[in-house]
């Protein structure tokens, strides 16, 4: 009952959440319909679109102010006086978001398969892998956004992640180019790759860049692909633990009277 209400709340807390899901599904369809070459055999171009919109922008839209709004409005003051472990509040909301994304990506897959069957355009090879990568990225970004929302007021958590990711990747790209000849570039690459949302590793996993190690090959070693998945899940857990600790340690008060 408790978990059900908290999970339901992630979908009902704002009027626009179902609209976001519908708009995103329409976007996938439009991109497929309008921008994919008729004779294309590669799914990668569409896969990246799905990965960025579904895995990155969708969690930002769904988690905007997920704790921040509660804190700035004072609603959290009643929530935290209920006999709940703070982790329950956090994890049930994460579960709610994760369930939403699961349904979202299943529906997205169905839409794409139906479109493919109707218009006979593009390819749906690796579709499952791109959906898996998008789902894993969604969870990582959603957790990071939720944890940030505990310390950042109102809906700024999503905006902050967006700005930091765009700026960060731009700067790192520039630095990478400048330092490509130096030995320290490896440290920089590792710093970009491991502690932050795993854009690079998951997109490599989905696009089959590990070739014979890719999940799609299967009969060979799949160690690298599994490592990508585990890395993403570990990041989700680490971001969650940070969020739960913040929620436990934070004070909630609107006035000093």
């Amino acid at each position, binding site marked *: *009952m408790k978990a059900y*209400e908290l999970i339901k709340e992630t979908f009902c807390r704002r009027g626009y959440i179902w609209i976001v899901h519908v708009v995103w599904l329409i976007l996938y369809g439009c991109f497929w319909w309008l921008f994919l070459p008729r004779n294309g055999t590669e799914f990668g171009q569409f896969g990246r679109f799905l990965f960025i919109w579904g895995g990155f922008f969708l969690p930002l839209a769904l988690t905007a102010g997920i704790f921040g709004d509660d804190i700035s409005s004072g609603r959290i003051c*009643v929530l*935290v*006086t209920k*006999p709940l472990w703070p982790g329950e509040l956090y994890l049930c909301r994460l579960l709610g978001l994760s369930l939403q994304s699961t349904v979202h990506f299943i529906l997205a897959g169905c839409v794409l398969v139906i479109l493919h069957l109707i218009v006979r355009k593009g390819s749906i090879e690796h579709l499952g892998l791109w959906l898996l990568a998008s789902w894993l990225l969604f969870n990582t970004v959603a957790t990071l956004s939720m944890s940030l929302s505990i310390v950042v007021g109102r809906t700024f958590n999503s905006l902050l992640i967006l700005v930091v990711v765009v700026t960060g990747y731009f700067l790192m790209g520039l630095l990478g180019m400048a330092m490509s000849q130096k030995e320290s570039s490896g440290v920089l690459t590792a710093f970009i790759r491991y502690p932050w949302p795993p854009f690079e590793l998951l997109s490599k996993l989905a696009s089959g860049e590990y070739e014979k190690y890719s999940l799609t090959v299967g009969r060979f070693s799949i160690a690298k692909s599994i490592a990508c998945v585990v890395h993403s899940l570990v990041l989700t857990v680490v971001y969650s633990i940070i969020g739960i600790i913040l929620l436990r340690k934070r004070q909630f*008060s609107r006035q*000093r009277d």
Partner: protein
Amino acid sequence: MTISADETMIDNDKKQAAVVECRQLTKIYQKLLAGKDTAVCALRNISLSVGEGQIVGLIGPNGAGKSTLLNLIAGLIFPNEGSVAVCGHPARSIEAHRGLGYMPEHPVFLGRYTARAVLRYHGALSGMSKQAISHQTDTLTEKLDMGEYLDRPCTDFSQGMKQRLALAIAMINDPKLLLLDEPSNGLDPIGIIQLRNFLKELRAAGTTIVISSHRLGELEQLTSDYMFMYRGQVVSFADKPSGAHAGRLRIELVSDGKAIAEKLLPPSKVLSATDTKLEVAVGDPREVPDIVIELAKGGARMMDVTLERENIEDVFVRLCNEGT
């Protein structure tokens, strides 16, 4: 209620099991990265013990520390020094929250939810079963006169309805301790009467209630246990020249009022004296007959004697004016 501030104790001889136990509480608000000059001491060395079935009124001017004390008891903030226990458990523990109901000053709800959905949500968060939530919702709806609004979205609610719903949320798990921050804000007169009767019923059933309110007249009808707070400290009513139930005795005389007052009454008791009028401070109404007999024996020819009792509002104004 037992209150202590700076080691000063007031005891009203009620020895119930303590539902709230605060020891040597100090709370300082300081912004992160800001200097110590910006720190505000909201509470200073406060100890408080509230027993079962008591209603305690927190009163004081704005910025006195009333909401800070409520927030500390609710476990929303942490003290810099001291400890808070609710039903014997640390304030922010799950065990403490099992017996706690909290109503904030400005309640906010999920806008798209109806009142019924909000109550179901909070009931579920309190670990109640579907049947228990349904039963409690029906009971509270009837007591708080919310039937008409139960299936409307909260966005449509007036301030008074929001207050009723917030009180129902605080009461959904039938708590042992109810913390109310300005509960009568926005309520119409009938709503205020309903609230008063409801709180009296709760007290009779053994619920402990701590109320922070500026509506002193309302508080006076609910309880005689007050805690006057001023600049983060508790100010004792009993330490003042006249206590919470004290008043002033107005005496009209034929003549020689001033001389009689100097001769028969201690100067600290005489508030004002002219030949025909005397005003005497009275700590306890039972002192009145003795004062009148004393004056009559001393030769005072009295025409009229009136006792003006000091209500809580008078005490509040007096304490504020005295700068405590």
